[in-house]
C-alpha cells in the first residue's frame, strides 16, 4: 500500500499546444479511494494512464510511495488495472482462475496458495476454490475476476470507467460492491468516471478536472457545500445548481425583478475587483416558494414537474417582466427547485421562489472563483 503523488505532472499530445493534463498536483493518501471526474476531454483518463505508464509524462513527476515512477514501464509500477478483462477460464478451478497470473510472474506455489486463500476469504469464495466457474452464480464469478486483481497485492488499483458497460440497475449495485470491497482491502485506489453521481457516492475524495486543469479536490460534501469555482458548482450536484449573473447594488443582488440580499463582505469584494456584477448560485433545495406578501424573489414559470415520491423537482424558466434578460444571464438551461412532494405545483403555474438566506454561493464574474463572505 502506498501514497500516490502527481507532482506538476503534465501531458502534451504531439501536435497540440494545449496540455491534455496541465501541471497536475494531487496527493492521494495511503488507502484512499480517490475519484477523478470531469466531462469528456477533461484529462481524467489521461491522468490515470500517466499513472499506469500508458501515457508519457512530458513534465513534472509521478510517485508511488517514495518511488519515482515517471518513466518506469507499466509492469514495474506495482499497480493493477481492475476489470480490464474479467472473462474466466472454464476448465480451471476458481483458485487457478484467481492465481494463474502469479504463476506467470514466477511467484512460489506456497505464496500463491496463501494469497489466493486470503483473497477468497475477503470475497467470500473460500468454499468455492476447488470448483469450476460454471458452478458459480454471476455475482460470484464477478468476485473471482476481482480476486484476480487482488491476489497481485498491488500498491494501487486503477479503474477506468469500470461500470460503463453495465446497464443502469447493475451499475448501482456494482458500484456499492466495489466501494465496500475497497474499504475492506484498504488498497489505494484511483477511479475514473464521467458520472458525478458515481464520483460522489464512491470516493473518499473527488478530484474535479476540466480542460486539463484540476479544479478542486475535496470530500464529496466539501465539493457540494463549497465548490471553489463556477465550473465545480455547475458540475457537482444532481439536479444541477442554478447559476446566473446578478447586478450588485445597495447590498442586494438583482436580476430584473429577482432580488436577493447579499452580505456586505461580498458586495465589498465585488467592488474591490472593480465589478458591479456577481455570479450567484443556489441549489434546488435552497429555493422556497414565497408567500404572497413577500417581495423580491424569483418568479418562475413551471415547465415540468418531476415527482419522485420522496422528493419533487420543478423545472421552469424565468417568468416576470424581465424574463428575457434573466434567461440570457442564466448559466444553466433552466431553473430547478425542490418542492414538497405530493403537493407540487402544476405545469404552467407561476411561482415566486426566494433563496434561503445563507445558502447562496457567490463567484467572481472575472475569475469564476468562489467568493467567501
Amino acid at each position: 500500500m502506498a501514497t500516490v503523488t502527481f507532482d506538476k505532472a503534465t501531458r502534451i499530445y504531439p501536435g497540440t499546444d494545449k496540455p491534455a493534463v496541465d501541471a497536475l498536483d494531487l496527493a492521494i493518501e495511503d488507502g484512499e479511494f480517490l475519484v477523478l471526474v470531469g466531462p469528456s476531454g477533461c484529462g481524467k483518463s489521461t491522468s490515470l494512464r500517466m499513472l499506469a505508464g500508458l501515457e508519457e509524462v512530458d513534465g513534472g513527476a509521478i510517485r508511488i510511495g517514495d518511488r519515482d515512477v515517471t518513466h518506469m514501464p507499466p509492469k514495474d509500477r506495482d499497480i493493477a488495472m481492475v476489470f480490464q478483462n474479467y472473462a474466466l477460464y472454464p476448465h480451471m478451478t476458481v483458485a487457478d482462475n484467481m492465481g494463474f497470473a502469479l504463476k506467470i510472474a514466477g511467484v512460489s506455489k506456497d505464496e500463491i496458495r496463501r494469497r489466493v486463500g486470503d483473497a477468497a476469504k475477503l470475497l467470500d469464495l473460500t468454499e468455492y476454490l476447488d470448483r469450476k466457474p460454471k458452478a458459480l452464480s454471476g455475482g460470484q464469478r464477478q468476485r473471482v475476476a476481482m480476486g484476480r486483481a487482488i491476489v497481485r497485492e498491488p500498491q494501487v488499483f486503477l479503474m477506468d470507467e469500470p461500470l460503463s458497460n453495465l446497464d443502469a440497475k447493475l451499475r448501482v449495485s456494482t458500484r456499492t460492491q466495489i466501494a465496500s470491497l475497497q474499504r475492506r482491502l484498504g488498497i489505494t485506489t484511483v477511479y475514473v468516471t464521467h458520472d458525478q453521481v458515481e464520483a460522489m457516492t464512491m470516493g473518499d475524495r473527488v478530484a474535479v478536472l476540466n480542460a486539463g486543469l484540476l479544479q478542486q479536490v475535496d470530500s464529496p460534501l466539501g465539493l457540494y457545500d463549497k465548490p471553489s469555482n463556477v465550473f465545480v458548482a455547475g458540475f457537482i450536484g444532481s439536479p444541477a445548481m442554478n447559476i446566473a449573473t446578478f447586478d450588485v447594488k445597495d447590498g442586494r443582488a438583482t436580476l430584473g425583478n429577482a432580488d436577493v440580499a447579499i452580505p456586505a463582505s461580498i458586495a465589498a469584494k465585488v467592488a474591490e475587483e472593480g465589478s458591479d456584477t456577481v455570479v450567484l448560485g443556489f441549489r434546488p433545495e435552497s429555493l422556497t416558494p414565497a408567500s404572497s406578501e413577500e417581495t423580491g424573489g424569483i418568479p418562475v414559470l413551471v415547465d415540468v414537474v418531476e415527482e419522485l415520491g420522496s422528493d419533487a423537482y420543478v423545472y421552469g424558466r424565468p417568468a416576470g417582466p424581465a424574463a428575457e434578460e434573466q434567461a440570457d444571464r442564466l448559466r444553466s438551461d433552466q431553473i430547478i427547485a425542490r418542492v414538497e412532494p405530493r403537493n407540487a405545483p402544476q405545469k404552467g403555474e407561476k411561482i415566486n421562489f426566494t433563496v434561503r438566506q445563507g445558502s447562496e454561493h457567490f463567484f467572481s464574474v472575472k475569475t469564476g472563483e468562489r467568493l467567501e463572505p
Partner: protein
Amino acid sequence: MELRILAAPREQQALLDLPWDMPLEQWPEWYLVALPRGISRHVVRFTRLGGNVYALKEIVKPFADREYQMLRDLARLDVPAVQAVGVVSGREAPGGEPLDSVLVTRHLQFSLPYRALFARMMRRDTVDRLIDALVVLIARLHLTGFYWGDCSLSNTLFRRDAGAFAAYLVDAETGELHNSLSAGQRAHDLDTARTNIAGEMMDLLAAGQLDETVDPIAVSDQVVERYEALWTELTEWEAFDVNERWRIARRVDRLNELGFDVDELDIVTDIGGRTIRVQPKVVDPGHHSRRLLRLTGIDAQENQARRLLNDLDTYAAVTDQQGEDEEIVANAWVMDGYEPVLRAIPRELRGKLEGPEIFHEVLEHRWYLSENLGRDVGLQEAARDYVENVLRHKPDELAILGGTSAEADTTQPFRITWNDLQ
C-alpha cells in the same frame, strides 16, 4: 423506443427478420449456427442469413456504437479484422423492457477460432505458428497506432496460410486508435497478451486439449520475445560505416522476408560522412500478397503468396521464360498451373479450404508423392491424388460447424453474462 438497424441496405433487409425482441440468450435454435468461439464476457451467437454467417454480440449501446466505428476505421486502415456489419439498437422485449444493443459482424470465411484448432491438433509447432501469426498481428496493429487493450487468442481468428496462420482481430471493444503508441502502451498491450495467452493455454491444458510438453508460461514469454525482435527489425535505427552501404539493401530484404514492404526509409549521415544511420519510416505489411495480387489477381495470405510466387519463379525457369516480362509469365503460370489445379477440385470439396491454400497443399503433396514414387509427378497427377487421398478426408472449413446451441457449453465454452448478476 423504436428498433434501429444501422447497416448496409442489403444486410438490413436480412437482419430485419431476426427476433430482436428476445434476449440473444433465448433465441430459438433454428435461428442459430453453432460455431465454437473463444471465451467471451458477453453473449455471442452466430446466425446464417442469405448465405453469410454473422456474429451477434449483445452489449450496451455506447459500446456497440464505439466498436462498430472502430472496426470500420480498422478496415479503412487495412488492418486484418472482422468486418462490422451494423448495430441494432432500441430493442425492446414484448413487455416493454429495454434490451441491450447488438453489434453485428460478418463471420470471416475459412477462419478458425483457436479452440477449434486445438480440438483437432495440439502439436507444439502448431502452437508456435499461432503465436507467430498473433505477434505479426500485434506489431501491425501497433504500427497503425492501435492499442488493443485486451489482446488474447479468444479475441483473434486464424486463417490457414500455407502451413502457417494469418491472424485477424475479432474484438475491438477495448481498443483505441492513436497517432502513434507510447512505449508504455505497447508494453502494456504485450503484458495483457502474455497473461491472457498463458491463461488460455493453461485452460486448454486443464481441459486435456494441449500436448503436455507445451509449457503455457514459456509460450507466453515467447510472444514477448518474438514481438520485440520483430518490432526492432521494423523500427530500429541501424548505424554502419559508409563503406557498408549494402547493409541498407539487406535491411530492406530482411523486412521483405518478414512480409513487409518498406515505403520510406530515413537515412542520416553524420557530419564527417563516415557513418550512415538508417531507420524504416513507413513499412507496409503484405509484401508478397500485394505482389501476387498485382501479377495474377489472386488474393492470398502472405505465406500462401510467397509459396505461389516461388512456384511462379520455378515455372519461369522450367519453361525458360526468365527474361520475359514478369506479368506475361505470371499470366501464363495462372493458365497453365494455378487454374487447372483449382478446376480439378470437385465442386463439393471447394468448401474445405481456400483456393490458394489448396494450391499450396497440392504443391506439398506433389513433393511427397514424387519422393515416394522416385519420379517427378506432374501437377495434374498430384492434384488428382491429393483430392482423393487428402482433401476428401478434411473437415469443411468454410465455416467450422459443430455441436448445437443446445450444447452451448461445448460450442460456446464459457461466457459470463452480466445479466446473471441480477
